[in-house]
């Protein structure tokens, strides 16, 4: 369920980075206030545990397929929400850096979807009330299955929203939701069952661990509510308002430049233009391969033209396309040789 850089816009990615960074520093402050310094190595080792456990395949009975554990709820149960959130964030960072799961820009989105939602929403509002202060095996089972499934549902819905606000994928909202939610409901239920199996095992074999974890982590309900309100508002502002702004001005950077210049394009003076066209006549080794004339006779057919942005696009111009393809090939060759040249230069 990792979001990838290729599918998000900088506005959504940056907004979620800000949200995730504030959450991480909040959680770090909370963890620092915790007197239990034994948790320092425990968090590290449990992070590694969840990371490695995610690679183990568990066969789903009756089907040929297999699934793996999620980790958010399990870590919250063992460490409390703040430390669990930090641990998940560290797992996602290592995954983004070493395995390019997600990406650097999408890291904020991923920390929010897979860290914040299970640790700060599903755990305190679903798992805790369902299991109560003295959990029985049955309650643990229901609590962890529902919490894991709900956490993943929220996460996958958040993926849908982030992708939609980015506007890179063409999938319409309803289709995307219908694709994502049922798949992740199945995955979530499965993750919940494995989580429950592990917690039940720990309950049976080493109940002290869970008791200590529950005692050392009083969850300040007031603080949590404040954080929730702040971050949901933040997410809506960045996701909603900024994306709307970004999509109405599809090219933010060009827009800002045209604002600062006051013109759409920088116009060259005649002499400079003259010089370059003369220079160009000398350099162009493929003259006459310009399809501009042909393109004007073949009028472009735009199938959908609902908004002004879409009527402005696409400017079908085969001349530009040919030039683009030629130029791209030359650029690729150039990029390769410059790279190789750098290697030679570095050896000296």
């Amino acid at each position, binding site marked *: 369920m990792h979001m990838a850089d290729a*599918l998000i816009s900088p506005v959504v990615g940056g907004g979620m980075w800000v949200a995730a960074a504030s959450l991480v520093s909040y959680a770090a402050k909370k963890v620092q206030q915790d007197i239990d310094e034994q948790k320092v190595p425990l968090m590290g080792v449990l992070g590694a545990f969840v990371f490695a456990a995610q690679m183990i395949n568990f066969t789903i009975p009756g089907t040929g397929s297999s699934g793996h554990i999620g980790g958010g709820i399990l870590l919250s149960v063992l460490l409390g929400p703040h430390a669990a959130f930090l641990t998940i964030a560290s797992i996602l960072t290592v995954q983004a850096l070493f395995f390019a799961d997600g990406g650097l820009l999408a890291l904020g989105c991923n920390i929010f979807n897979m860290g914040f939602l299970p640790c700060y929403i599903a755990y305190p509002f679903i798992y805790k009330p369902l299991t109560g202060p003295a959990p029985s095996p049955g309650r643990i089972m229901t609590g962890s299955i529902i919490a894991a499934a709900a956490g993943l549902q929220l996460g996958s819905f958040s993926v849908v929203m982030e992708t939609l606000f980015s506007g890179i994928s063409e999938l319409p909202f309803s289709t995307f939701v219908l694709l994502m939610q049922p798949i992740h409901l199945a995955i979530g239920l499965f993750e919940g069952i494995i989580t429950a199996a592990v917690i039940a095992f720990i309950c049976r074999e080493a109940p002290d661990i869970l008791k200590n974890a529950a005692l050392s982590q009083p969850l300040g309900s007031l603080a949590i509510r404040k954080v929730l309100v702040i971050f949901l508002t933040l997410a809506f502002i960045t996701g909603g308002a900024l994306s709307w702004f970004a999509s109405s001005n599809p090219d933010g*950077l060009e827009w800002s430049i045209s604002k600062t210049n006051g013109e759409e394009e920088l116009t060259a003076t005649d002499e400079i233009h003259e010089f370059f066209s003369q220079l160009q006549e000398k350099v162009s080794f493929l003259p006459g391969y310009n399809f501009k004339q042909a393109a004007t006779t073949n009028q472009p057919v735009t199938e959908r033209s609902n908004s002004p942005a879409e009527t402005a696009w696409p400017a079908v111009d085969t001349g530009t396309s040919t030039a683009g393809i030629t130029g791209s090939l030359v650029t690729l060759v150039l990029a390769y040789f410059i790279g190789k040249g750098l290697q030679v230069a570095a050896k000296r």
Partner: protein
Amino acid sequence: MSKLESTWLDLRCLDDLANQQTVVHSLNPCSKLLTTLAFSVIVTSFSKYEVTGLFPLLLYPIALITLGKLPYLQLAKRLLFIAPFVGFLSIFNPLLDQSLFAVFGPFSITGGWISFLSITIKLVLTVTSALILIATTGMNSICTALLQLGMPKPVAIQILLMYRYLHVLLEEFLRTVQAYQLRSFTAKGIHYHAWGSLLGQLLLRSIARAQRIYQAMLCRGFNGQIPFHSAASWNKSDQAYLLLWLAFFLGCRLVNIPQALGKLLTGGLS
């Protein structure tokens, strides 16, 4: 090869690459991190129909791979692992976006295919740049760079400790799963009878390990604080590296270099 095993090997491989001594490796981690982030932002800021404008940016990974002596194959393998999810989401673009983009004789290219191509190039660029960062910098240096940029210290400690024990636990899990598989007749996966006990045993062992680590830390004078070695100095070369790449990225963003080059060569300007 199981996913555990390949992950473990990949980690080892990236660690080895990060320990090399090249021009890129010796740069300040902060400047490399900032450059990579700027690169991701610039790449993703291109419109979804941009294809040609992205090509010049390939110079960045190519230059760093050659200068940093990184294996192309290893990076390409990683890329293939990531591709399915992004491919799944972007393959709908050609089906849903049928607007005409260009006509070459009998062939017509729709906007959907152009945006699909654009996503693919963006994927290649962002994934390789992230892998290059780790393969030329290493986890410890990235953490110090993040600290310098204002990341809270507990987070840095968490990432470093986790990363350290990831190697140990991956090895241990690999042995456990191997032992399970040797004693079971089903070829893949863990049977549901063993779900709780297998993972639970591993969890108990990991917690016991954490306690031993804590005691070892106490023996070595741990007082709740972990000292970090001071950050690498910021030289003129680091500054030049960052500024030159930033200028190049911005140049690529503002001027469609292949388009301009193509026009120059085909005579489209006159």
